[in-house]
């Protein structure tokens, strides 16, 4: 019986399961990440001494910067682990379609970052005495769309960075400039929702379009990157 | 006005610096080529 090339869905399922299993097994990594996330929130709280009104205006920016740091660390971790185990080479020679691998890695990272978000947000709410004046459902939407923007690009640039010197620095160095439009939109949406002033509709749509465009570009070009000499 | 001359001056300083960098690049490559040809 000749082995058939695995289906995209199959790849997705297996890879995500593998990543999550590995994360779970390396509890050390998760714990240190979480502690780091807590530290970031605390440091930011110390850096700014805010009134409740001020908090609502600024928290949007602070949360996303904090999450950005935490996400960058998380993303560096996942690719570093792949490299350690020479998984990247295995990917290259496997018959599995590379775009499926990209999606799978991104989804795995996404789940991880969303968990980080879920843990950091209550901390921020507590430390900044935040109370959202706008609909919380929209906050959830921003969280998800924003996280995906960072993770999709971060995963892709992580793959690029594998071929470079100083790869831990390279990934955020590439990620940050490209993510600026998404960051501006995320912060704008979050602030609008928290302060309840106006509708966050436009930045949410913008984020969705950004996500679709950049995920597609990454999807399309991942194979090229994987096989780059 | 000072700012005006500073702006025009800075523009040319920047361009000239880059051209100098390029010339140095050429010089270095010529050295390398001489080196290669010697062997």
């Amino acid at each position, binding site marked *: 019986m000749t082995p058939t090339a695995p289906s995209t869905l199959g790849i997705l399922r297996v890879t995500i399961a593998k990543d999550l299993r590995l994360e779970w097994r390396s509890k050390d990594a998760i714990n240190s990440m979480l502690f780091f996330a807590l530290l970031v929130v605390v440091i930011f709280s110390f850096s700014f001494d805010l009134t409740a009104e001020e908090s609502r205006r600024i928290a949007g920016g602070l949360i996303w910067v904090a999450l950005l740091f935490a996400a960058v660390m998380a993303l560096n971790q996942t690719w570093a682990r792949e490299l350690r185990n020479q998984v990247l080479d295995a990917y290259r020679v496997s018959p599995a379609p590379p775009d499926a691998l990209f999606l799978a890695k991104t989804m795995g990272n996404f789940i991880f970052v969303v968990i980080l978000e879920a843990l950091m947000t209550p901390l921020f709410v507590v430390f900044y005495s935040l109370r959202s004046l706008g609909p919380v459902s929209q906050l959830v939407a921003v969280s998800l769309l924003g996280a995906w923007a960072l993770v999709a690009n971060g995963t892709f640039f992580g793959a690029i960075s594998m071929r470079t010197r100083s790869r831990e620095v390279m990934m955020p160095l590439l990620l940050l400039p490209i993510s600026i439009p998404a960051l501006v939109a995320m912060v704008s949406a979050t602030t609008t929702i928290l302060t309840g002033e106006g509708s966050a509709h436009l*930045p949410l749509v913008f984020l969705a379009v950004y996500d679709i465009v950049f995920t597609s570009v990454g999807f399309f070009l991942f194979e*090229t990157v994987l096989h780059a*000499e | 006005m000072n700012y005006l001359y500073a702006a025009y001056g800075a*523009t040319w300083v920047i361009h000239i610096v880059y051209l100098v960098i390029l010339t140095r690049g050429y010089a270095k490559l010529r050295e390398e080529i001489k080196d290669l040809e010697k062997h």
Partner: protein
Amino acid sequence: MKSSFVIFALLIFALLSFGLYEGLVAAPTEQTMGDVQRIFYYHMPSAITAFLCFFVNFGASIAYLMKRRPAADALAVSAAEVGVVFTTVVLVTGPLWARPVWGIWWTWDARLTSTLVLWLIYVSYLILRRFSGNNPVLSAVLAIFGAADVIFVYMAIRWFRTQHPQPVIGGGEGSGIDPHMFQALLANFVAFAAFAAMVIFIRYRLERLRQQVEEAHAMRAISEPAERVSR
């Protein structure tokens, strides 16, 4: 140096001198801002030229990914570097204009902010090249991401950063620009675009040379062990 190249260089020098004359002398003094406004004749053409450079980089990157010709990669890096140089000029002349006119060095208005992000994106491109051993495929891929991003940058800053004033640029922009001013603008744009093309060409030749030297080294490395063995 080839004589045709020298002739072109002299022509471009003449164009730039003409542009300088137009900007500093011929163009009428602006009413509200005074002579400082003349910075505009360097600031704006540099911005447009930078954009053209990045557009060339985008095209060359796509061409490389499709045909894998080293010449395309050489053009891509050349256009990116020259683009960064011109963007730097924009970022330096901008504040030098803003300070005397609006009292602050930096204004987070849409144009200047977008230019800053553009600079960041293409500097990161150059850093990737440096740290990946000039890997042409990775660079080309990043160039595509960068170019796609530019559109989003402009939209995001325009729509979502509304706290900052949008200073009126160039005396008569809203009301229709004075023809003499437009002439100075055009003269400098043509001059700088031609200058950019020339510098890109110089950089391109340098890169092609570097590519060939690198190849020569590689061939040398392959053949050398054999020589030692045969001794």
